[in-house]
């Protein structure tokens, strides 16, 4: 990855901005276009861009897959947790109105937390899917031996190539 100087510099400049924009889409979702799903996809795209430019191994050092699976669950837990919290506060499942002092504040808080849950899960799932596709043939899966079979690699002995 030494030679893609322009790409590396541009990516380093863009990645923080992409993340910032994702957070804007996330938290402005109450008032304008946007919301958890879109924000999650954009936030995930920042990591995917990093993986494309700097390689899968570096990207997996940034977000180890153990954390990713925890994040996938955490988002859904936050969503369902808000539902249960509303139930314990005396409302129906997912009735945000009872979450805070007055109805409007409760609705705001509820939708913010639920959309945050959606955002976290979507972002983590996007990265998991990318890693799963990009990592195929790296020996992660024990039953994927076709892609890693040494005979198919181009620099195996030149004699065998001539025989074919």
């Amino acid at each position: 990855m030494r030679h893609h100087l322009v790409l590396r510099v541009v990516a380093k400049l863009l990645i923080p901005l992409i993340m910032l924009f994702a957070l804007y889409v996330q938290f402005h979702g109450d008032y304008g276009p946007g919301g958890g799903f879109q924000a999650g996809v954009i936030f995930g795209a920042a990591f995917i861009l990093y993986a494309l430019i700097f390689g899968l191994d570096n990207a997996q050092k940034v977000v180890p897959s153990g954390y990713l699976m925890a994040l996938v669950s955490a988002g859904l837990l936050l969503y369902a947790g808000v539902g249960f919290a509303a139930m314990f506060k005396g409302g129906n499942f997912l009735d945000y109105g009872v979450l805070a002092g007055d109805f409007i504040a409760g609705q705001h808080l509820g939708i913010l937390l639920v959309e945050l849950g959606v955002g976290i899960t979507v972002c983590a799932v996007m990265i998991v899917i990318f890693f799963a596709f990009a990592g195929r043939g790296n020996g992660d899966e024990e039953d994927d031996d076709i892609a890693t079979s040494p005979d198919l690699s181009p620099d195996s002995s030149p004699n065998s190539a001539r025989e074919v």
Partner: protein
Amino acid sequence: MIAAHLPALQIAVPLIAAPICLLLRRENLSWAWATFISWVVFALAWVMLEKTLTGGAFNYELGGWEAPYGIEYRVDALNAFILLIVAAIGAVVMPYARASVAREIPEHKRGLFYTAYLLCLTGLLGITITGDAFNVFVFLEISSLSSYALIALGRDPKALTAAFQYLIMGTIGATFILIGIGLMYQMTGTLNMADLAKRLPAVEDTRPVLAAFAFFIVGVCLKLALFPLHLWLPNAYAYAPSVVTAFLAATATKVSIYVLYRFVFTIFGQSFSFDVIPLESILLVLSLAGIFAASIVAIFQTNVKRLLAYSSVAQIGYIMLGVALVSVAGLTASILHIFNHAIMKGALFLCMGAVYYQIGSVKIEDMNGIGKKMPFTMFAFVIAGLGLIGVPLTVGFISKWYLITAVLEKGWWPVAVLILLSSLLAVIYIWRVVEAAYFKAGDSDDVVVKEAPVSMLIPIYVLTGASVYFGIETSLPLGTAAEAAKQLMGIGG
């Protein structure tokens, strides 16, 4: 507090349990957690059925939003009964799963397996409980996506192809259902089922509503595997892990049949579905063709799981035949057979799971002489198989009895004769397995094949016992089915 929130808990408990299951990261913990949740879900479903049978239908407004605007869960005798079937099968299958999954699924995927199972359970229960047409589609996708993953986990590489085939067919079905719901929404401006039922009659002569009905029926018949839209089913059932086959065969198609009941009878209404559109003649022909074609194909199968899968297609034919009668008696027989077939097919597939656990195959030729080596498993297979044929004192007899009574009530005696003839086909395919198991000598005595572990035998015998118990003491399924049928036909309730 819990009593008021029962409908929400029914869905929210397995939903929140799924990510927790993923976080547990220990195979045994995941299994214990999934089993515990299955039992909780079963208890909730049981309490709700009791509540509907004594106090009538009740609703739950999600998020506190009023019915036509927000999503509403509505529980009546029919869907409480289907919820109980799904939850009960889940509760019986999970204790069995531990040994079977340990043998069939690679270690690092077992935690994910239980997570996918919980999501599938959530989806199936959600489809059944919701009173919102679009919500049906959402839960349908949850259950379908997780079941594609579950089927693909099968040990045979063909499981991947089977899951992909199911994915394509299932997605076409789901898309058709969505198009149907979209057209209904376009014409009425509502997605709530009760509200749709009120508003549809005003626009029922319009072309979009006719198109909506056509798309919806084709889509849902694909999901419930009505002949000739059943092509995804045999491979999916044959190559999925044993636990998955038993769970899905007993629940997934049944839930789709429930969706058909709900839309045809409650939403579109009987007069539109059967007077404006001749749905009953279409269903009658297809279900009879399905019963015979699938039973005959089943006779020639060499893989017993595939044989039972074709038999499922035939049994769906009986269930749909009950719908085609458009009478309280016919619907009662239909709903009753959903319950009875879930028990019998669940038991049969669990037996095959035990056989696969011990000999690593479910081919008929590999099962020679297995009756002596695994006496308890094969005895259960014979009892549940007798039920499939329709022998008295089993649940299968009760279903056929009520179906034939309902057919004769209409005066369609040739159909009654055909039903009896088709039972003979079931005798042949069950006999082929019994013959191999008991009357052919096992070729290799040096291979020691033992009886399946007790953790697998107990669930098998719970279902087999139920198939005899409910064949004698029919008040619970019959009473509920009759009540549900009356409500669907708009009589009483």
